[in-house]
């Protein structure tokens, strides 16, 4: 840029030495002089400095925001995981609370009923579509035998038809092959409850002179079927009376919701007697 000769260099060196000695000899004056000389230079340098500084600040801000966002994102993910975990725990707790409540009610009911019962859990449905049945997690080793009645808090469920060591199969009262002797609570007329394919039940052999009405509750008679007397079966929803027939037939809406069966009681001794019940001779043997 500048081609400095040895003479010019000497001049510059001398000027610098003079300036330096001036600073030491006359400090105040020299400071004012230096400020005056340095001002324009400072102004010139200030421009890119500010520019760079602004860029740096912006970059820093962006970086800080990026880092912060990353932290927030991580926090978000962690919080989301925690929420999911807590939601799962809350669902588990709700399920446990519901199960506790159900089991508590079942235990209370078990305490009140004069019959001896065994509580069991429903672990599956019938393996075919042809029978309306459920599989229980209790079997022969828990004292469960075929022909024993099964009920819930709401009412009669069905009867045990097959038992293994640790499981048993129950035929629901809504199966067409099931038959339980019952009576209409108000009129005390007896009949036989059979299942239908649409998940309801039908009460057959109601005497033709019976004053049965829609809405009448039906309960077990306690004579057959492994049930104690007075267990609710359902409510009459319609009545058919054949011309010249000896009996009436009524459609019965079961008390128990069979789609939501979870825990049941198996009646091992229906009336609190010591001997376990024998197979009921009046019951249909099929299947």
């Amino acid at each position: 840029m500048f081609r400095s000769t040895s003479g010019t260099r000497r001049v510059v060196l001398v000027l610098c030495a003079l300036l330096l000695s001036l600073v030491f000899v006359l400090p105040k004056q020299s400071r004012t002089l230096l400020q005056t000389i340095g001002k324009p230079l400072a102004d010139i340098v200030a421009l890119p400095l500010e520019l760079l500084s602004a860029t740096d600040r912006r970059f820093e801000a962006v970086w800080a925001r990026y880092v912060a966002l990353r932290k927030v994102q991580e926090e978000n993910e962690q919080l989301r995981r925690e929420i999911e975990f807590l939601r799962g725990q809350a669902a588990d707790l709700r399920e446990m609370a519901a199960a506790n409540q159900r089991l508590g009610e079942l235990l209370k009911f078990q305490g009140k009923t004069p019959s001896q019962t065994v509580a069991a859990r429903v672990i599956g449905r019938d393996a075919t579509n042809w029978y309306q049945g459920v599989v229980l997690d209790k079997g022969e080793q828990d004292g469960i035998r075929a022909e024993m009645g099964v009920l819930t808090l709401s009412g009669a469920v069905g009867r045990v038809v097959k038992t293994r060591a640790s499981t048993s199969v129950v035929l629901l009262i809504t199966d067409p092959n099931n038959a339980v002797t019952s009576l209409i609570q108000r009129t005390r007329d007896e009949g036989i409850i059979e299942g239908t394919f649409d998940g309801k039940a039908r009460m057959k052999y109601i005497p033709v002179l019976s004053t049965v009405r829609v809405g009448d509750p039906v309960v077990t008679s306690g004579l057959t079927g492994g049930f104690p007397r007075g267990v609710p079966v359902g409510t009459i929803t319609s009545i058919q009376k054949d011309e010249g027939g000896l009996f009436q037939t009524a459609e019965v809406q079961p008390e128990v919701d069979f789609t939501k069966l979870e825990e049941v009681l198996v009646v091992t001794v229906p009336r609190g007697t010591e001997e376990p019940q024998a197979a009921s001779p009046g019951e249909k043997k099929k299947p």
Partner: protein
Amino acid sequence: MKPVLYLGLAVGLIPVQTTVLEHLSLAGVRPDLCLIAASLIGFFGGPTDGVLMGALLGFEQDLFSAGDAWVNAVTKALFGLSGGLVGRYVARVTPATVAPLLVGLSACSGLAFLLAGAGGQDTLTAVRSVLLPQALLDGLIGVVAYSLLAERFKRDDSLV
């Protein structure tokens, strides 16, 4: 491969049939996985495998059903045999041949149950509400299963 597959089916199919299928039922009717499995085992594994596995699966099904303790064992063994004979003697097996076969077998299974007294006195309702929907469902699911298995076993040409 074959023993593991058969063992898996023998151990796992009934739990699936009695528990999981409850959530997948259409209008209260579930497909009969044991029937489909027995037929397809016969198809791909031959009549002997079909009969033996059909009898085993059917027997297990009888254990967890309220019905008589033979209907499933006998019918499933026969369906395994039928699947085996079709697989052996029908020259070109396609989903179009499998569908009517499974629908027919399922309908025969339903008739066997009706003859065994499963339908009670209301036979027509039983046919309408159980036999026909189950036959169609079995046919549909069987065809899907056949298509998947045919792809998988095309190279091996057998279950071995």
